């Protein structure tokens, strides 16, 4: 399948791009090819993809690479940030009118899920202490009014209807009057599904809008929509000036790129997400979750986040300086171990690294207990010992072993590991001095 191919290709690319301290144009180009595929595969409109890639590429080139990331990861990190940014903040709120009733109008294509979304919204608002009234303005689809009435009775929310012989504009007007006398503070108008190019029916919506002046017009969009989402959203927004979007059927396995398309083309927030057939399956919309769903690189993203959270850049620079100058001591070693630990279970982190598979993980087999013992041993050293391990003689070793609850053999192992590491670092830094590729800044020792 394309998608599998994609993620492994991405991992390949991530592996290839390593080393440099700055993101080069070539890195960006290579990564963007994958990002473009991912977005198109997720149904983001191709024009939106083009704009997005251009903008993000500009931002990426020349960026300094965070110590803990590879340039490839750095690029993906920026892509993800920009995606979240573009998707907007969490705004799952309705504009309530200071003078009730608040009027909400649901619009959208046929089959997008307006009627169900209307019912769910009524349910949600009632839980928030509102008194909603549902209004049946779909006079076209057979049994649409009945459908809303059934939903209303399931929810115990009154439904206002006048049959299918009255114009939707008049029904809407009468409903608002009814809300006033009946003590309803929120009115939700369900309209018939229509094509955005159906002028007559689009005019009808415009007339309803003019007649009742809704405080909130919500465009209902099926999350599985393809490239056409931009045309639909643009037309509805131009004609009516929508206030927000409800994304439905997110409980499917779609990547949901339509979310990005409609958001980019209208600039309006996605306020709610429909996540099931039950009437309480309406959730606030989370831009960050949607971004990683669209990008389809969830694992890579969480790795990047973790690495970034737990790695202190200044300390890294200091460490690098010490490595180069051969001043690496046990205090630095300890610090490194602590950073490793704060990233969470090691094998989980390794598992998130691109290109890692179960088999490789097993062969690495991170021994967390050993790590903890190492830490205890270092902590049992005196300040002097940590700065200058060469003074650690036999009696000191005995003391350290006792203090850390380990054995002399363990202490010896730690001292050996430390010397090993120092040697390795010297090698690295010599490589760096000779300007060889493959060593830029210090990276995690795994």
């Amino acid at each position, binding site marked *: 399948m394309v998608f599998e191919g994609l993620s492994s290709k991405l991992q390949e690319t991530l592996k290839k791009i390593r080393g440099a301290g700055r993101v080069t144009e070539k890195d960006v180009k290579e990564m963007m090819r994958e990002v473009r595929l991912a977005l198109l595969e997720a149904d983001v409109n191709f024009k939106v993809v083009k704009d997005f890639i251009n903008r993000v590429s500009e931002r990426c080139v020349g960026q300094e690479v965070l110590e803990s990331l590879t340039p490839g990861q750095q690029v993906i990190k920026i892509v993800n940030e920009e995606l979240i940014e573009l998707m907007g903040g969490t705004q799952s709120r309705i504009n309530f009118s200071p003078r009730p009733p608040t009027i909400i109008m649901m619009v959208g294509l046929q089959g997008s899920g307006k009627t169900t979304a209307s019912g769910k919204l009524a349910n949600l608002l009632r839980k928030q202490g509102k008194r909603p009234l549902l209004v049946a303005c779909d006079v*076209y689809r057979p049994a649409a009014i009945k459908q809303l009435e059934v939903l209303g009775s399931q929810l115990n929310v009154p439904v206002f209807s006048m049959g299918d012989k009255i114009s939707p504009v008049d029904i809407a007007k009468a409903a608002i009057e009814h809300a006033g006398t009946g003590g309803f503070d929120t009115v939700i108008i369900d309209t018939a599904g229509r094509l955005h190019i159906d002028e007559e029916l689009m005019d009808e919506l415009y007339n309803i809008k003019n007649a009742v002046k809704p405080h909130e017009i919500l465009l209902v969009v099926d999350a599985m929509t393809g*490239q056409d*989402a931009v045309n*639909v959203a643009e037309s509805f927004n131009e004609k009516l000036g929508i206030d927000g979007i409800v994304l439905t059927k997110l409980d*499917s396995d779609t990547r949901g790129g339509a979310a990005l398309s409609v958001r980019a083309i209208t600039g309006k927030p996605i306020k709610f997400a429909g996540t099931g057939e039950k009437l309480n399956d309406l959730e606030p919309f989370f831009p960050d979750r949607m971004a990683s769903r669209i990008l389809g690189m969830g694992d890579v993203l969480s790795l990047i986040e973790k690495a970034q959270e737990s790695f202190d850049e200044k300390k890294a620079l200091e460490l690098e300086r010490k490595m180069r100058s051969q001043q690496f001591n046990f205090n630095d070693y300890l610090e490194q171990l602590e950073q490793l630990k704060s990233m969470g279970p090691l094998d989980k982190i390794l598992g998130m690294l691109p290109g890692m598979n179960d088999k490789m993980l097993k062969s690495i087999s991170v021994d967390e207990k050993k790590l903890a013992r190492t830490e205890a041993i270092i902590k049992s050293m005196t300040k002097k010992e940590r700065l200058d391990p060469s003074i650690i003689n036999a009696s000191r070793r005995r003391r350290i072993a006792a203090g850390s609850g380990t054995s002399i053999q363990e202490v010896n192992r730690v001292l050996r590991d430390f010397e090993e590491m120092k040697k390795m670092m010297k090698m690295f830094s010599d490589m760096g001095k000779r300007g060889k590729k493959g060593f830029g800044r210090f990276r995690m020792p795994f």
Partner: protein
Amino acid sequence: MGFFEKLKNGLAKTRKGITEKIEQVLVSFGKIDDELFDELEEILIAADVGIGTTMKITDNLRKKVREGKITNASEIKNLLKEELTRLMETEDSGLKLDTVPSVILIVGVNGVGKTTSIGKLANYYKNMGKKVILAAGDTFRAAAIDQLRIWANRVGVEMISHSEGSDPAAVIFDAVQAAKARRANLLICDTAGRLHTKKNLMEELKKIYRVIEKELPGADVETLLVLDATTGQNAVAQARTFSESTNVSGIILTKLDGTAKGGIVIAVKSELDIPVRFIGIGESIDDLQPFDPREFIEALFS
């Protein structure tokens, strides 16, 4: 032929020769090539064909150009159309509905146009002189039975139904018995919209399918998956999963009266070899047409 005319004809020939040659050169240098291919790729992607299938198609075309099978750049677009048309064509002459009764089972995700398509299909086959019965197999969605009843009345055919919330397989069972008893030619079964990711609902569909197989052994059964033309790449997953539980034999592509091109059926055909049988082009009773590959591909490029 006069002198001037001869001259003109001669010139035309050379002119043609020269431009052809230039184009050939450009093709081999990859100039027209890249731009043209970018354009073609964009057309296909904008039509929801999907990046995977699009690249497969254009790579194939590129290969032909490289192998020198195409020497004229302007031929490329036509060749592409030809190949796509061929891909979408089927060898048979449509649905096989010869037994009495035969069955059409309609399946698909929520809101794609199943019930509406059933209304249109009933009308289509009734006009061909068949005796049609409808089965109200969507016992889940609010007022779904009423919706189908309105269609049954419009067309003037009988509908078998139970109450909302009852077992859909039982409805289908009764409908099959009714079809047999009344010597109906065709039974068309509605089912509730369901996301293909819901395991239990797909199991329910399997059960419905088994009832038909068991009660009508040897009968012609066509399972038609309804796909909404506005749907993107997810349609492939839909087709794959619905096929697993009901042996989908064809597709009804709805809502082609909008601006969406429905190109995803190309990916579905190329990956799963499921042919499109009908298209929906509106909400009225006559807005259903047998699928015409040539017209469909032509519309893709318009």
